[in-house]
């Protein structure tokens, strides 16, 4: 494998890791606050549709992004209502949200565009275009780092840079701010937060809404940057891979970056069986490679490679007790 192939591979790793990373951080906020969210998939899908649809209708990808975020946050609100206000089962609520998104997106797409559940292809200002970073061309001729800068670091859409910037930001919010302290506390022991005079409900809603925001960006990225338009079920299990990455990352922001990059690499390799054959000398089925993140997560969950301990109050609705 030559250097350029490697760069290409890593480049598509970054592009495939971006939605995973955003969704993983989304789940991180929610689960750190004690609200399990298996509805990441549905929120991404809803956001993917609404951002593409609105971008197609208005011609502005930014309005599309806003619409996608709004749709995702609406689902977050629903999840909050079910799991925080009405203390329902968070897992079941997540399942419901996934189906609601899967059904509604096609239903509305058919109603609006009559193209068999897809949106029209996005063009021009209705899509996030790659950004060429300063000096990418001039710098590109420098050996080794030049191509890395030009091909790998430069030339992504703005959402990719936002996603990567979210990692240190999430870390900072979680471990360096009052909000982060309270958020982590409410996921570990909500009673401690409540008796300290801080609203458990408020904190958990805040976390769930942030989750919605990030899932919204993730979804918008799928339909307006990675692809040019929405197609039915386009999230294709990414929400679940993000969930797997979250466990893999043991609910930590920097680990989330590494986990999603790793899973992104698997995704990139899936489309390049020639590369695997060149390195390992064996032919690996794409489908099996696609299942690798799930297999690895099961192994992690089984505690064979370092135990993943979730936030202690995760999944439990908070009921005041003396």
């Amino acid at each position, binding site marked *: 494998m030559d250097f350029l192939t490697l760069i290409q591979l890593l480049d598509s790793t970054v592009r495939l890791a971006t939605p995973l990373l955003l969704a993983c951080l989304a789940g991180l906020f929610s689960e750190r606050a004690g609200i399990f969210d298996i509805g990441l998939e549905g929120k991404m899908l809803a956001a993917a549709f609404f951002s593409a649809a609105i971008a197609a209708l208005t011609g502005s990808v930014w309005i599309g992004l806003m619409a996608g975020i709004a749709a995702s946050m609406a689902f977050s609100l629903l999840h909050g209502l079910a799991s925080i206000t009405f203390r*329902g089962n968070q897992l079941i609520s997540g399942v419901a949200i996934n189906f*609601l998104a899967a059904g509604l997106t096609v239903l509305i797409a058919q109603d609006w565009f009559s193209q068999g559940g897809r949106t029209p292809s996005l063009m021009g200002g209705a899509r996030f275009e790659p950004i060429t970073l300063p000096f990418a061309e001039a710098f590109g001729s420098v050996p080794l780092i030049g191509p890395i800068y030009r091909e790998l670091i430069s030339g992504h859409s703005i959402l990719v840079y936002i996603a990567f910037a979210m990692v240190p930001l999430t870390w900072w919010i979680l471990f360096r701010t009052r909000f982060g302290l309270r958020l982590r506390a409410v996921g570990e022991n909500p009673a401690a937060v409540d008796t300290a005079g801080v609203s458990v409900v408020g904190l958990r809603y805040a976390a769930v809404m942030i989750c919605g925001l990030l899932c919204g960006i993730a979804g918008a990225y799928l339909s307006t940057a990675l692809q040019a338009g929405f197609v039915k079920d386009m999230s294709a299990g990414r929400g679940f891979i993000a969930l797997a990455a979250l466990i893999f990352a043991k609910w930590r922001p920097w680990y989330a970056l590494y986990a999603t990059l790793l899973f992104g690499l698997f995704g990139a390799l899936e489309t390049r069986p020639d590369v695997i054959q060149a390195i390992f000398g064996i032919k690996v089925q794409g489908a099996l490679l696609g299942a690798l993140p799930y297999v690895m997560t*099961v192994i992690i969950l089984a505690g064979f490679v370092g135990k993943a301990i979730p936030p202690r109050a995760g999944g439990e609705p908070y009921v005041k007790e003396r």
Partner: protein
Amino acid sequence: MEVMPKWAEVILVPLISLVLAAILSALVILAIGEDPVEAVNLMVTGALGSTYGWGYTLYYATNFLFTGLAVSVAFHAGLFNIGGEGQAMLGGLGVALACLLIPWPHWTLALLGATVAAALFGAAWAAIPAFLQAKRGSHIVITTIMFNFIGAAVLNYVLVNVMRPPGSMDPATARFPETVHLPTLHEMLAPIGINFSKAAPANVTFVIALLACVLVWFLLWRTWLGYEIRSYGKSEPAAKYGGISPVAITMIAMIISGALAGMMAINNVMGEAERLVLNAVEGAGFIGIAVALMGRSHPFGVFLAAILFGFLYQGGAELALWTSIPRELIVVIQALVILFTGALDNMVRMPLERLFLMLRRGDA
């Protein structure tokens, strides 16, 4: 003192949830510019207005009976088996292997063999997450989700690389031999003079599904094993005190659950397609969640809910055929049912409890 009478708990709460889901579904239909009354009419005619419609309704219901029972049994043990989809896929593999590798002399024997194979494969696919939960404390919801994806990948691999007949481009197995053909309702009812639609896929498996309902009921409420499953589901510390092994019950409940989900394959793979295709399960594993929630995890409730969802699926297909409403409407309805009967249960229950409390105070 009881807050709410039992009949309200068992009938009123799910009924109100269902009505709420129906109202919202009607609003969705209105929003996309269609007439809900007309839609319901079309669905009823399409799904129940002919033996053809009934044949499809019952065919779908058979699938949902198996997956609904699967989710229910796990629920009773306090386990959320979200992996019915994967277990049903693997069940299909079991059926395909049994039908293709063994020269069955008669369909009855083939059905027996295929049922055992389907149950074994489904159970095995549930047993791994169960073991990891019981022995390693891995969250079963997450592992069963992961196993759905892994199962799909395995099936994909097997169909593309191993079981695809030479020369075929289709990722599917060869057709099963004629001897393993299961009698359809048409063939079963014709001798007693009932003319049932020939084209509909409902077959003898429906009877097996009903039998499974009865057996699950007996298991849960009439045997000590069912008693142990329900005890463990209600309180793990109590179960330990009572000499009930958490490991054993987790394994047994999930194996039964996976076996039931796997057994769905005798309906869709052996009874209908008569070969194994890639997307044979078509989401029935997930519909089992809605069916179990709506049926309150009781076999009779599951029966009613499965028929309802069978009706919705056949009706939805008819709707997609005659109007511009896509089949995904059913997915929306399914989501709303899960939402209201599962996650927003308290939204219905809390006001009702207050109401009953007020009524009682009025009496006193």
